[in-house]
């Protein structure tokens, strides 16, 4: 009887661990994109995880250097099941999210007329 109960607990533990692992490894389940209109992208998409802390008391501020005369082509913010769980468990004290961004490409260089 005791053995059965122990096995049940083990199975439950494995189930939870598997579920959390799959959830954390899976791709983000929701995302928001903000894109500059008719902006041409540079090559690399940059990605990082940021944390908003203390109910907005310490929101992350990211400074991005795209180079002179260039801006952001796209910014995406995404969350997943694990991040949502973290937010609930910490009562909103820790709100993780993934952000992705990409700068715009070099501007066209007008060379006038080739004579």
């Amino acid at each position: 009887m005791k053995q059965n109960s122990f096995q049940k607990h083990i199975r439950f533990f494995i189930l939870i661990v598997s579920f959390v692992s799959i959830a954390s490894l899976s791709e983000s389940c929701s995302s928001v994109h903000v894109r500059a209109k008719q902006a041409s992208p540079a090559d690399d998409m940059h990605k990082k995880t940021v944390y908003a802390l203390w109910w907005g008391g310490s929101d992350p501020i990211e400074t991005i250097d795209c180079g002179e005369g260039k801006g952001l082509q796209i910014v995406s913010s995404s969350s997943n099941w694990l991040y949502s769980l973290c937010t609930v468990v910490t009562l909103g004290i820790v709100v993780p999210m993934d952000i992705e961004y990409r700068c715009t490409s070099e501007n066209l260089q007008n060379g006038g007329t080739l004579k």
Partner: protein
Amino acid sequence: MSTKVTITENYQWANEHNNVNKQILRRYQIYNTTGWKDGLKGIQEMLGQARNKMERVRSYGGKWSLSDVAVSNDNMHDTKPLTFWAGIGASNIDGKNWFADKASLDKRLFYFQSGAQIAQINIALEKAGFSLPTTGASNGQTLAGAVSTGTHGSALKIGAMQDFVRALHIITGENEHFILQPKTDPIVKKGFSDIFGAVLLNDDELFYAALVSFGSFGVIHGLIIETLPLFQLETYCIRINYSQAAGIFPLLANFKHDSSTNITSYLNSVGIKCTEDPHHVDLIANPYSTSNNVYLRAMFKRPYDPQKLSPEPGSSDTRVGDDILSLVGGIADSIGAAVPVVVNQLFKDVAKVQSGFTQTPRNIFGDSTVYHIKKGGASVELGVPVSQAKAAVDAVFACVQSSVFAGFVGIRFVKNTKATIGFTRFAPLTCTIELPAVNSEATHNFYKKVFAELDNLNIPFTLHWGQEGDYSPQRLSRMYGAMLDKWIQARKKFLPDSVQRYMFTNDFLKRCGINEAAPLTGGTII
């Protein structure tokens, strides 16, 4: 290197649709400082280094291809920092118009470096009072990338994007670069190639072979293109049954490049009131329904008149010119039995487009949203003779009934190209059938089924080089016949040194069986 270059070792390369990923030895980003000189010199130095190491090189642009056509295992060159552009001085022009227009040719010819992106070019040309004659439905490609893979729209009398290119500036080694143009219809004099220190090469076979060659003739440094005076497109979109839409196929089978398209009365009969030929006409079909399952889109070219422009669309608005790969992004996570329901539901959303919307090309064929596709997109695009277009589309629909295909069917019509292995090769019009969908095993099985069915029906077809498909030597031989050998011979003539041919070869070419490069000392290295 003496120029401004960023080299990233062991770079993880992925295309924009996220279905091609590869670890490469290094990525080069070469920058101009002022003008074009540093960009040109940087590429030459990169090629010199690659040759010394016996490594391969491939340039890429917007990473818009869904196949590995633009991928190398060794060195990859991001062209996007190379964005110089300029007009061509009248004293250097030696040619005639390709597109009937009264505006003087010397005002309409431009040299663009390879990294200029379509969105940037549209904006720059519009400010200068010109338009690209045609583009694909989206603006994310670079000019060189779009041309090299045969990107097209559905402009009936223009052709694909390579069909407005008048000359190519190709670098083949540390000390070799060429301005390549057709001998029968040259556009620039030697004085132009002297500006770059390049060799002027007038050769029809080489030019038309190099036009669609996906980086295998060398690194394209720049292109001379013929533009048109700025125009605007008045767009219409109606939703009809496929049985009505199919009425357009026999009419376009009798298409003549230099006269009426014969479809004005047809368009009137289905509800698009018009008195002149459309510049562009295409269809988007929902294969999971039989009624109201086609959007027929027609665009009429008008001289630029700012008084008649519609308000510019917001970035999230659906436009008549939207590319359907973006539209299928919403289906990406649907599976199995839910596919017909999701496709039907998503198809309704396309109807938000406004008929009568009038804008310049940059606002008609605008931003794409391919990054929404989390699991990666997949797409195959077939080219078939317009005379057999209905049979081909019917075959695709039949395959959908017995498969899982989470997508729409995009049908466009393109004037036949002169490019030796351009996939829009069928005269007078090639009907292109695009099948964008979720990247899954079921989708790829569906594509195989379509190829087999078209073979069974003896319908000849080609495949878009920048999309997925069967690129086996057998299939290529069937698609291009003698033209394929002509292309291989032209490449051999342009790159007589087998090391050069090796440098500009990649796995895609090898798979195609067109990687012709003699074995080097020590055996075959490819």
